[in-house]
Structures are given as structure tokens and as C-alpha cells.
């Protein structure tokens, strides 16, 4: 078992039922694991929700937590994605102090470099939206920090596998887990 700490992305398909998110989150808290980000939304099937969780940990821990997740009744499928084999995106909204025209210009220029967009503006502030992976958002936030960030909100990372593979693919392990789901 490797003890190396890495960022893992867990894609979890669940039935869209009340309490399912807390059931999923509870498994992490029970083991004392801290979730870095969590994003949830419906899929092509309105009855199915996809939850994406980013968590730092080692391989053993990830194997263990995915095994436990797969046992939950409303969990349909779990896939561990690595940063290399998936495309990740996150939307970050940043409200920055911009009292003067010069400052506004500077912020807009910085945003343009990152292909971020201005989504709202007031006399004293600018709100910037940036979509990208974690690195891109971090770099922009770093620059904006000098100008005075008022607040930041992020959706949490969502990710999808590169290439033909999907979360619906069947394999031996999945078959075993569905059985191990010890239900049906």
C-alpha cells in the first residue's frame, strides 16, 4: 500500500434521493477524511445525480473509501479519476475592490490574460468569473489578491474522463461491488 499523498477525484453516480449527499459525505467524516471540494448536479437522467469529490490521500485510503461508497444503496457507480486521465474544470467567482478607473482597467486586463470574464460591476467592485483547472484559478487569485479580493466562491472541481471511457463502463470490479453492495 502506498502512503504517498495525492489529489484524487472521485466521480460518484447516485440516485437523486433525499439525504444521499449527507450519506456520501458521512463516510468521509466518519474516517476523518477532509473533502477538498464537492460538486453535485443532475446528469442526462434527471433521476441520477453525479457527485465529484476531490480529496487528498493515499491509494489505500482511496480504495477503502470507494469500497465503502459502492456499498451505499443509492450509489450506482464510483470511478476514481486521476488528474492525468481526466479533464477538470471549476468555476470561480471573485469580487475585487476596484474604486478607480485605473484599477478597473488593470483588473480587466489581468482577467483577459486568463480568459476570465467580468460578469458584474459596481462603482467600487468588479466580479470576475474564471473557468479552468485548479492551477489557472490559483494563479489569477494570486494576482487579484494584491488588488484586494472582497469575496471568492467556487463550484468545486468537476471532472470527466478523457477518451472513450465513461463512468458507466462495466468491469469485474464493478460487478463484485454490486454484489458486495450486499443488497441486490
Amino acid at each position, binding site marked *: 500500500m502506498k502512503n504517498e499523498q495525492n489529489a484524487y477525484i472521485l466521480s460518484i453516480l447516485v440516485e437523486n434521493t433525499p*439525504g444521499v449527499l449527507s450519506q456520501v459525505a458521512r463516510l468521509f467524516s466518519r474516517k476523518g477524511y477532509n473533502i477538498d471540494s464537492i460538486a453535485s448536479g443532475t446528469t442526462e437522467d434527471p433521476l441520477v445525480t453525479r457527485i465529484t469529490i476531490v480529496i487528498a490521500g493515499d491509494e489505500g485510503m482511496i480504495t477503502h473509501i470507494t469500497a465503502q461508497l459502492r456499498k451505499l444503496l443509492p450509489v450506482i457507480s464510483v470511478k476514481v479519476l486521476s488528474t492525468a486521465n481526466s479533464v477538470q474544470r471549476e468555476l470561480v467567482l471573485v469580487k475585487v475592490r476596484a474604486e478607480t478607473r485605473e484599477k478597473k482597467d488593470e483588473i480587466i486586463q489581468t482577467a483577459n490574460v486568463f480568459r476570465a470574464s467580468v460578469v458584474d460591476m459596481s462603482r467600487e467592485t468588479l466580479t470576475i468569473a474564471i473557468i479552468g483547472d485548479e492551477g489557472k484559478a490559483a494563479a489569477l487569485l494570486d494576482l487579484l489578491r494584491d488588488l484586494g479580493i472582497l469575496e471568492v466562491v467556487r463550484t468545486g472541481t468537476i471532472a470527466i474522463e478523457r477518451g472513450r471511457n465513461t463512468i458507466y463502463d462495466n468491469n469485474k470490479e464493478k460487478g463484485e461491488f*454490486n454484489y458486495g*453492495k450486499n443488497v441486490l
Partner: protein
Amino acid sequence: MKIRATQAILECLLEQGVDTIFGYPGGTILNVYDELYRYQDKLRHILTAHEQGAAHAADGYARSTGKVGVCFATSGPGATNLTTGIATAYMDSSPVVFITCNVGEKVLGKDAFQEVDITGIASPITKATYLVRDPNDIPDIIREAFAVAAMGRPGPVLIDFLKNVTALDVMVDYEYLPKTEHPFHGRLAKLKKRSGWDLKTPEPNADDVDQLVRMIGASQKPFLICGGGVVRSRAHREFLEFAQRMDAPVAITAMGGGGFPGGHPLTTGMLGMHGSRPSNIACDTCDLLIAVGCRFSDRVATVPETFAHQAKIVHIDIDRAEIDKNVQTDHHIVGDAKRVLQLLNARISQADHTEWKQFVFSHRAPPAQGTGLLTPCDIIGTIRNTAPGDSIVVTDVGQHQMWSIQYFHFDYPGQLITSGGFGTMGFGLGAAIGAKMGNPGKVVLHMTGDGCFRMNGQELATVSHYDIPIITVIFNNHTLGMVHQWQNLLYGGRFSQTDLNFAPDFVKLAEAYGIRGRRVTTRAEMEGAMHDALSCGHACVIECIIDTDETVRPMVSAGKPLTDFLLD
């Protein structure tokens, strides 16, 4: 057909073949109990003294019969009183459907009288919880709940009905559906369709079985562990054939008692912290360890890293999440114990491991010398000599539990009922009630300690009221024995808060409930008391006075390797 919602609940229980319910009424579940009044001739309800007793009784009923147990309780404190019972069932994979009622929709979440979020509380200790807000969901949810409780790795589920759902003027559509049809209708069918699961038990992977057959062929010193999965799957016949073909020593875990005959020449007894020398040494020296339906708990694999360090470890389990959870394995087969063992038995030939067996069994301890005092071994020896061999043994938790597992012989699944995983003191009496209700033809022995008995002893009221002939044997050492033993050995004899020398007079206590009580201090008295208890046909409490410093032997300290015996 339009029937009352409460009627639908009870009809759905009848669909499942339920005949006995353990429970306790209260404000929010009144409507269901009102309906139960009309179903008295079809559904027997056992009113316990406390909801926890009802939960353990439903659990004991499930463990001893292999059927799904059913337990009712009201909202709030009624529901929270169940939680220890739910967790006990969950840890030991016992199928029980807990039914509670909550406050009405209008006041839900407003801290109404006796309101608690029981589905939230029970979520970590159940396979599934259901909050029923729409009466039309009743049949579907109950059918799903029973399927979930019983299938795969069994376990408890909880259904919480809102009070307005059970209102007596609420009518729902209900059509009788035989149990075999359930997977093809409603929620179960949808679940199956959406996720592509098959409701049938899938076959174990053929390649995995092939590989294990090769590993068995290459092994010179095989060793088997019979876990609770063998008991739950009722795979004892298959396991026996497997062990005999393998000609390998077999250890049981606490939960595996009854999975392999206790008196069989291949058995080494219990494995782990209080495991026998042959078990622990065999585990340490074998070259192939096959564990069936066991989860390598910390009481078995005291040090997971060095557990069976010379062996290839093979894990056969129904729950994929158990594989590599506590102990890293070399190979696994996911499947129902019964089916996997059937496949293996068809593939392996008769082996002969005489030399290996001789080595393992050479470590058997010589029989203990009598000291004149009544010892736990004497007590259980006397019980075994007087009670029928197929008597069901229900234990509480602690020293008497270990002695019971060590000295009794269990020959069939359900013969030993013990809280192995959760270690719930006070489990025994309730569970014994359930076991006797499920097995009226068998003698039920409730083994308990003076500490445990005081935890749910009030269930003697239930025993007395329904005249349930359970024989309760109290090992009274006037202390919290197991903790006392640890304090003596590992805490320098500082007996912090374990002295129970202020217990009530158990004989008088029994008599106060209208139950015969006897106090015994010698083997002869014990024999007499057992004969009386067995012949009287009613419940009986036998208090056995034993030495305070009696210990469970052997003993390995927590976190120490299995062969590092602290006590021989």
C-alpha cells in the same frame, strides 16, 4: 383494492411471512398498534419492558431462525432506545426491519413532542433507512426494505412512517404480491433496471475459483477460518465437506460459532485474542489461510501487518468492501459462502495433512485441574451434560461470553447467538426471548454475567408475562470480569470502578418477577438446578457464584501478535 394505510403495513408484513413482532407502543405509532389489534390472530406481538429489549429480541429471532426480524417502536425516545439494538444487528450482519413512526408532516422538523430525526441517526448503522411521507409508497418501501435486509450481506434497515401517513382514514391501493414477484415490481424493479444489477445471487468468478484450487493444490499447511458469513449463509454443511476434503485445521471466530461442529477432530476452537493455542499457532505458521465470511476484526487479526505472515491469505466474502479492509490478502473470491464452497468442493480432491495436523494439535492445552471451587468450565460442563446437545446458547458480553464460546460445542448456524462485533452488554436476555420465540422446540440458555444482567434484566418481566422458558445462568463474580481481568494484568491491579459487589439479590429479583431463582456454589448444586430448570418448563434464573479472579485463558493483549500469549 383500497385498504387502510395501517392495514397495508401489516399486510405487507404478512406477505413477508412475518409472524412475530417485538415492540413497544407510543404516541405516534398508535395507529399501527390499533390496526395490530385487529390482526392479533395473524401477528403475534411481544411487548418488551424496554425498546432496546425489543430490538435485541428481533435480532435474536433473526439470528436463530435465519428469517428477517421485525421490531416496532414509537418516535423520539422510543426510536433512540432502538439504536444500540440496531448497531448490534448491523455489526453482526443480522437482518432486522425496524419500524418506527414519526410526528406528522405538519410539525416535522419543528422539534415537536417526541420528535427525532431517526432516519438520520440510524443511517450509519443500517443498510438503508426510509422516511415514508406518502402512504401510497407503503407496499413498495416495505418490500424493498425486506429485500435489502435479507439479501447479500444481511443487515438491519429502518422504516420511519410519518404519523399522518398512518392516519386511520388514509386509504391506499394494495394488491397482494407473492414475495417471489417483488423484484419485478415497483422500486425494486426500477432499481434493478437503472443500475443493471441482477437480483439473483451472481456466480462467483470462475477464474478466481480456479486460482484458489491451484493454491490449495500447492499448499502443505492449510488453515481455515470459519467466520460469521458461514453462519449467515447457512453454509455449515458445505464448510464441513470443504474442511474434510482439505484435511485442514479449522478455527472459528466468535461469530462463526455454529458454522463448524464444535466437537469435530479438525477444529482448533476460537481464534484471536482469546483464541486457543492451536488456533493462534496454526494461524501463525500455516502456508495457506482461507478465511470464509470473516472480516479479520481487531480481535482476530490483533496485528494486521503480521497476521498469518507466512501464509498466502485468501478471503472469501460476500461483501467486496471487506476485501483488503483490515488485512491485505493475496487472493479473494467475492460470493455467497455456500455457493463458493459448493464450487470448491466439486473441484478439490481429498488431501492428507496428517503431519501438519499433528503439529497444530500438539499445542492443545492439558485439561484444567479442579480447584474445588465452582469454575466457569464446571458450570458449562454441567450444562452440557444436562441440557440437550442442540440447545441454543445466547450470551451477553464479557468473560462469560468467551467461556461460552470456548467450552460449548456449536453444531449448527444459529446455535450460538452473541454480540460479537458490537459487544453489547445487555444483549442476551432480549436476544434469548427472540431465539425462544423463533425456536419454541429448543432449549434456550441465556449465559450472562452479573454486570450484563443488570443492564437489561428488566426483560424478566417479558419472560414472566409470556411465560417464556429461558434458562438464565448468571456467572456472578461480583465484578465487571473482563475489565477486572485487564486491570489486573495490564493496569497494575487498580480496579477502577469495576467492583459490582453491590448487586441486588438475583434470586429475589427473579422471584419478584415471578420466576424461579436458584443460587449455586458447587457442581452438584448446579446439576440439581439444571435438572429442575429443564424439567419445570418455565423460565429459571440460576446464579452461579464464581471466583472474582477467574480469567479467560488464553489471552493475547490487544495490538500484540497472536502467539504472544499474556496468559496461557
